[in-house]
């Protein structure tokens, strides 16, 4: 869990540096990146409230499979989304690296289950491009684009659309 704590600090620092929520966009975006299998995904760091170790989730009856359930986050009920299910990947067992990324979407708090968090990256605007079209074969509707960071490819998550689907 030491890695998680270090990242939390990074998240907090970037919140502090950027001052206002809209401030960070001028010179590019800071992203919190995480892994699903071997793929790297990024979410705008200003939307991230916290990173949390995996805890037991209470299943909500009669909800889509991607909604894993709800957890108790310091007294509030927070829905948890299984990102692997959203992208149609097979689910895996919880590992010591499995974490919940708590994000804020339209004033609602929700948690995303991911395989592991990796890094906070700053990516320039010009390194970003719109999501490629795969036709019906691959659903990219939850992505706002893709970006290049070094030799890594980061898929940028559009979490607003993500929750709208859930």
């Amino acid at each position, binding site marked *: 869990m030491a890695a998680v704590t270090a990242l939390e600090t990074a998240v907090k620092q970037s919140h502090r540096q950027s*001052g*206002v929520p809209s*401030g960070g966009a001028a010179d590019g975006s800071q992203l919190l990146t995480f892994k699903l299998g071997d793929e790297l995904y990024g979410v705008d760091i200003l939307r991230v409230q916290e990173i949390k170790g995996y805890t*037991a989730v*209470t*299943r*909500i*009856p*009669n*909800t889509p499979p991607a909604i894993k*359930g*709800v*957890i*108790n986050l310091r*007294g*509030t*009920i*927070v*829905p948890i989304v299984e990102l692997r299910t959203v992208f149609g990947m097979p689910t895996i067992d919880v590992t010591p690296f499995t974490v919940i990324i708590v994000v804020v979407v339209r004033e*609602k*708090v*929700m948690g995303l289950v991911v395989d592991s968090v990796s890094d906070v990256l700053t990516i320039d605007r010009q390194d970003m491009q719109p999501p490629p079209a795969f036709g019906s074969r691959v659903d990219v509707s939850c992505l706002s684009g893709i970006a290049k960071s070094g030799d890594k490819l980061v898929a940028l998550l559009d979490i607003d659309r993500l929750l709208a689907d859930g």
Partner: protein
Amino acid sequence: MSNEFEQFQDAFFEEAAEHLAIVEEGLLQLERHPEDLDLLNKIFRSAHSIKGASGMFGFDAVAQFTHKMETLLDLLRSGKKSVTPGLTDLLLKSTDCLKTLLDGVKLNAPVDDNVVQRLSTELAAVSAGEGERASASSPTAVAEPPASSGGAYDIRWTPPEWLFRRGLDPLQIFKELARIGRLGRVNVDTSRLPDLNNMNPETCYLSWTMRLETAASPKEVESVFEFVREDGELSIEAVAVPDSAPTVSGADVQREAKSATLEISEGGPKSIGEILVESGAVSKEALERALSQQKRVGEILIEQKAATPQQIEQALQTQRQMEAAAQAKKADTASIRVDTAKIDKLINLVGELVITQSMLSDLGTRFEMGQVHVLLERIAQLERNTREIQERVMSIRMVPIGTAFSRFPRLVRDLAAKLGKKIQLVLSGEETELDKTVIEAIGDPLTHLVRNAADHGLEMPEERLDNNKPETGVIKLNAFHESGNICITVEDDGRGLNRDKILAKAVKQGLVADGAALSDDQIHALIMKPGFSTAEQVSDLSGRGVGMDVVKRNIEALGGTVSIKTVLGKGTTFTLKLPLTLAIIEGMTIRVGRETYIVPMLSILESIQPKPEAVKTIVGNGELIDVRGIYLPVIRLYEVFNVQPEYEDPAKAILLVVETEGERVAVMVDEILGQQQVVIKSMEQNFRKVQGIAGATILGDGTVGFILDVRGLLEIARQEAAAADAA
């Protein structure tokens, strides 16, 4: 100049409401004891307080109106006039009007000037001679800005940089301008605004351009800026107003001025017509002509014979009620007054909690196995502290129900006068405390019940005398605690519910089949069905068939129940059973497979472990359970929620007999784990409503458990059954 006082305004409204209540209560008593001078003085003092405070806050209309009331009260007090029923009636009406005026100011909503004007004329006329001259000055005259038939000014204003440092607020200026005329098209220039890094939050970087239509002289306009002229830039240019400039009546202007201030403070969107007129593309007359050609939906529907005028009227009525309710809700963000003693106790308890916590953490740092008993002792202490704090905090929200009852003396008085009946209202149990939110929510249902009792329940005086009953009917309101719930009864000694009449009407309306044999309870449940009314004539009081179903829905939304007891010819009693609070409920924790759920205790009647032969099926898959001779439908919770159960055989599982909206069903679960109080947490806050789940709670082990909504379960089960049938 009201802005500086904004933070005190809430307190003002709260106090004004209290004073109004005193005035109203006093006036009602005055009817019975016209000679009571103490009472008059009390009323006078409260009216005077309202006048003084509203004057201070700049609510001139309120102050002026109260002044007129006060004049009359003063005449009564000094004995120059004597109290007559007509006068108290007028004063009571004025109190209502004052209430609307206050609400108007509070919600920034327009008030019907006609009523205000008529009443203030009447008040003035009654107190004429000793008082001021009648009717000459309308109460809103002061607040009314001069008609905009005069000129218009283009104002460009760059305030001095020190504006904020000296505690001045530009909004104040705009409000002042809106007062002397009609303020349109206010544009703000933000070009001088630096980067956030370089910005000094105490420096004003903004400047404004605006168009002011007013009859005031340039000097008067300039005087608005008097305190902010130094160092700033100000140019006021008179401009010609287009010929089509509307000459509107005073009332219109006032409303527009109001909307103008609203636009400034909230920046709300304008209607297309407004924008067109402001940009000069369309003249105001043209717009009004166009608008007058627009027809209301209702009229169109009537023309096309899609609906009858009565239906439209009813729909409009409902709409008005909904609007009123929405407004009331908006106003309901009110604060709560708490006894300081309660707070002191709470602070003491929190102190104890802190001590216990530090003792525990101290123990934790150097813990040895031998100290287990010390640990347990301190944990027990912590538990005591927590429970006590919980009780105290809950008690802060507890308010005597008398506040909800206080409106009824007036209501019953007015109803009696309107219906020509003699009614005595008896209140008891006013000191019974319950949660403030519950009190707020039961106000309307109670009003419905009292109205119904007066209108349908009680007979006319002659009819009562014919039936050997005292001429005066009695409506009793009582509140008391009963096993962790609060019971409120509304009792009348009227004609009682007529079983045959209800049944006949229900058959006629197609609610039940002809010849159906119904139990008394089922008959009584009928009157709570939407659209049901036995009143032969629809009056403006009741008989529309909305009412009882609303009562039932509201009470059930609070987790309560409504029951009826009636004896033909002797009277009817409605009993509302409500939880003491909405934040915590008593629940039964149950288990299905590996999932834990909570069922509200209030809806559970009993739990049974059925014999195998007690479960029967009909038409193949509809399951019924025999509970002492009555067959109840069985809902298998695991089927409804799609979870893996431990038992699929009802004989091994537990059946909870629950009641919802008068309907009983048996819910099949694996095991009952226990009974506990649970704190209700919102699911909607971060997610959405889930059918069959009323809310969530945190269980003892820190995980989330769901509170079941029995009604919702029933609906899911029926949908599934219907889907199965269709397949």
